[in-house]
């Protein structure tokens, strides 16, 4: 094997989206040398796609808001399956993380008194999302990118080298983690540009690789979202949890085919857009589930009044949590009341002036005009569910982001699991990145300081890892990775998609077994320099592993909850609420292990009405909490 560069760092962060960059900033500010490795160019990560905003209970627009309300909303959204400690930390720390961004140079939209403006979003009781038009994700990533640059400028002033303490390895893909016993020692990566390998040696590695959407056919996710962090962690011995919970965003574009799946921000509904079926009916009023009865408007008049006066009226059911809206759209289409291209209509044109739409939703206007040649100020959009987010991920310690089972390995953002339970609220993703990105950076820094020990990686292991990575290039003949990928996506979309049944999932698991052979046998032509076929061949391995986790966990959970809907087991079942399904890598596949959640602290339980808790918890879990002992108020 050819000689390979070995680069020692204190902390290696894999992924340069919001969570990764926030971890980099924290670890560097603690005085450590950090490498950040990302598959795309610096600043192009999927975080740029986030539109609506970043949830934080700053109370700038409605001063009734506080962390307790945010915590409650998050737990409700996740159907109480969330890791409550993460939800607590998230709700408490999000405002500080947002304010901190302003000191990095972020420019959020303002209130009349000059504070950060906040907007309404599905599942949030009060206007809570800090935003910049509908490009909040771009603002976040650019702000943190520029903060990284400013830290590099400080290092340059001190040492003459911009990259003394932070170096960005852009367009560089990690294929494997190295471990020794139960601790991580480094990672193997290759430059996409040259195909050359590089070995990172570090006592702490932070995974911030995002999601898994590219395993599905219709997705709002970019090509990067191939579950790399999930798969790397699983192979290194960490456990994945909640993998059955995949969020299908209710509003993706459905036409033309080339844009199918691209996101239409929830902000359209937050700002007054409504869903209608082919008959022109606002069907969401028929889909308010039992657990949310009484919390949403029951007539169109009340819903419309809510936009003007949110204290005196209940909000429109168009803003129910995403899982509810996605299922409702699915049901309308199945009942034959869909739009011509298999979605429903999202109408803002008839509810707002063209000027107002362009001012409030500029990038949506732009996106439909440029990509689909549709003028959203003149005609309704056609929308349908699209795979958007995976709630499941690497099981972590809430306070430090340390991955369960592998010392020195940390995870934050979408690739970690637990925070969002069975369903994520819009706006909680960007705040999640900031809160837990920072905590993972701190955790990684603490681990370095604890004297993690020698990170020498035996050359034989490096050689073996490189050989595995090169297999698709060296294979004489085999299948085209593009074909295999397309079929894998189709299998997941059709059989483990938004509505699931035992027979279909079992069918999918059978097919995934055959895919294992096919993925192992793909081959690509051409050189190693910037060869997209080879890149896909390597990503396919991760997508397959993650898909197997999703399918097996989906089969195991015999209830419907949040982002997991079983047609054969409709409705939530309380005994499942505190059950976490862990996925563990076995070498040839994955096995499941079901564990109990840590019971929620009483002071947090007491934030809810007893009657509400009864909808989710078993009687047994609530013994000790006297009826009426909780007030639900603060």
């Amino acid at each position, binding site marked *: 094997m050819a000689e390979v560069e070995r680069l020692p760092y204190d902390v290696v962060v894999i992924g340069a989206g919001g969570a990764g960059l926030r971890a980099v900033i924290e670890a560097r500010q603690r005085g450590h040398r950090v490498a950040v490795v990302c598959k795309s160019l610096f600043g192009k990560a999927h975080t740029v796609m986030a539109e609506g905003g970043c949830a934080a209970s700053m109370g700038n627009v409605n001063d009734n808001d506080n962390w307790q309300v945010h915590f409650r909303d998050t737990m409700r959204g996740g159907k109480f399956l969330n890791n409550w400690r993460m939800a607590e930390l998230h709700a408490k720390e999000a405002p500080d993380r947002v304010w901190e961004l302003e000191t990095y140079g972020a420019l959020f939209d303002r209130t009349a008194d000059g504070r950060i403006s906040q907007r309404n979003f599905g599942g949030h009781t009060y206007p809570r999302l800090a935003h910049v038009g509908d490009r909040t994700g771009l603002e976040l990533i650019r702000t943190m990118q520029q903060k990284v640059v400013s830290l590099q400028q400080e290092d*340059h002033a001190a040492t003459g080298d911009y990259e003394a303490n932070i170096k960005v390895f852009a367009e560089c893909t990690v294929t494997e983690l190295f471990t020794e016993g139960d601790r991580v020692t480094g990672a193997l990566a290759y430059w996409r540009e040259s195909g050359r390998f590089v070995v990172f040696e570090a006592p702490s590695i932070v995974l911030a690789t995002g999601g898994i959407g590219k395993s599905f056919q219709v997705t709002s996710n970019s090509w990067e979202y191939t579950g790399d962090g999930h798969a790397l962690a699983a192979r290194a011995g960490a456990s994945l949890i909640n993998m059955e919970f995949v969020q299908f965003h209710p509003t993706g574009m459905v036409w033309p085919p080339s844009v199918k799946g691209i996101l239409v921000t929830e902000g359209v509904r937050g700002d007054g857009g409504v869903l209608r079926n082919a008959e022109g009916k606002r069907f969401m009023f028929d889909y308010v589930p039992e657990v949310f009865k009484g919390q949403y408007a029951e007539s169109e008049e009340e819903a419309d009044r809510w936009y003007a006066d949110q204290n005196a009226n209940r909000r429109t059911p168009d803003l129910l949590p995403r899982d509810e809206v996605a299922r409702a759209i699915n049901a309308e289409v199945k009942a034959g009341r869909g739009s011509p291209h298999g979605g429903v209509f999202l109408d803002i044109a008839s509810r707002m002036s063209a000027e107002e739409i362009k001012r409030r939703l500029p990038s949506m206007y732009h996106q439909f005009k440029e990509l689909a040649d549709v003028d959203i100020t003149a005609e309704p959009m056609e929308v349908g569910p699209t795979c958007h987010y995976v709630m499941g991920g690497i099981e972590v310690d809430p306070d430090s982001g340390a991955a369960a089972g592998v010392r020195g390995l940390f995870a934050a953002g979408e690739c970690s699991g637990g925070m969002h339970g069975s369903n994520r609220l819009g706006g909680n993703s960007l705040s999640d990145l900031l809160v837990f990105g920072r905590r993972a950076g701190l955790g990684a820094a603490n681990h370095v300081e604890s004297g993690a020990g020698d990170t020498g990686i035996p050359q034989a292991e490096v050689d073996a890892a490189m050989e595995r990575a090169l297999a698709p290039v060296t294979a004489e003949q085999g299948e085209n990775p593009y074909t295999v990928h397309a079929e894998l996506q189709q299998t997941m979309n059709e059989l483990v998609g938004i509505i699931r049944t035992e027979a279909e999932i079992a069918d999918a698991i059978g097919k995934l077994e055959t895919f294992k052979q096919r993925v192992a046998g793909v081959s690509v032509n051409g050189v190693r320099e910037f060869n997209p076929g080879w890149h896909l061949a390597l990503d396919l391995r991760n997508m397959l592993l993650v898909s197997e986790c999703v399918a097996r966990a989906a089969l195991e959970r015999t209830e419907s909850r949040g982002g997991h809907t079983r047609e054969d087991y409709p409705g939530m079942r309380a005994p499942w609420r505190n059950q976490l399904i862990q996925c563990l890598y076995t070498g040839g596949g994955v096995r499941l292990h079901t564990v109990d959640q840590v019971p929620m602290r009483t002071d947090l339980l007491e934030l809810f009405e007893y009657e509400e808790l009864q909808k989710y918890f078993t009687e047994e879990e609530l013994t000790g909490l006297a009826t009426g002992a909780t007030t639900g108020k603060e």
Partner: protein
Amino acid sequence: MAYDARFKVWRGDAESGQLCDFTVEVNEGEVVLDIIHRLQATQAPDLAVRWNCKAGKCGSCSAEINGHPRLLCMTRMSTFAEDETITVTPMRTFPVIRDLVTDVSFNYEKAREVPAFTPPQDVAAGEYRMAQVDVQRSQEFRKCIECFLCQDTCHVVRDHEDNKRSFAGPRFLMRVAELEMHPLDAADRVPAAQEEHGLGYCNITKCCTEVCPEGIHITDNALIPMKERVADRKYDPVVWLGNKLFRRDKR
């Protein structure tokens, strides 16, 4: 509705390369990037192209289509006649890596040369108060997705490799303007705009504004206002004449 389109795609690397002919299927509603992907999946699996979101939000798929700097994902096939040959080439201003992928590190180096936001000393996090009217100018510039098409089209560096050393390009002059107009930035950005970032090279021919996929008015709202601010300081003719006549030392 589908038809076969003729494409010429530049393939090669820093040493050599040429335009290669392809005939490829096009369906309703597709963009140029879809066609490039179809080429990868069916005819040229190792065709290198950089892309990411495919929704005009990340600015990765910059290239040149019929000689125009464009995002591949934001160029609809319906804008071309069915019998038109469509030429796709990498950005001309940057070194090519392979096929349509160029080495854009020039831009990241220039980004590092612009001093970062300087927070006010006496305002704590959470205490920032800024009026919407005061942030909206900089917000326009922060719409930038860093596709670097403005850098690519700007003749100052496109036609003159040697100017790359002293010229930051429209994207980063706009970044200077963004910080200069930031209501709470504590630094003075004006002298450096002219002396270090090469504002004087700009001859306001507006090609950057023409190619911007975000529709940012780079020239009118960023570059010219910066030139005017420089003129405030440096080209007040009275001061200028005094400096010339009496050979006062420059700052």
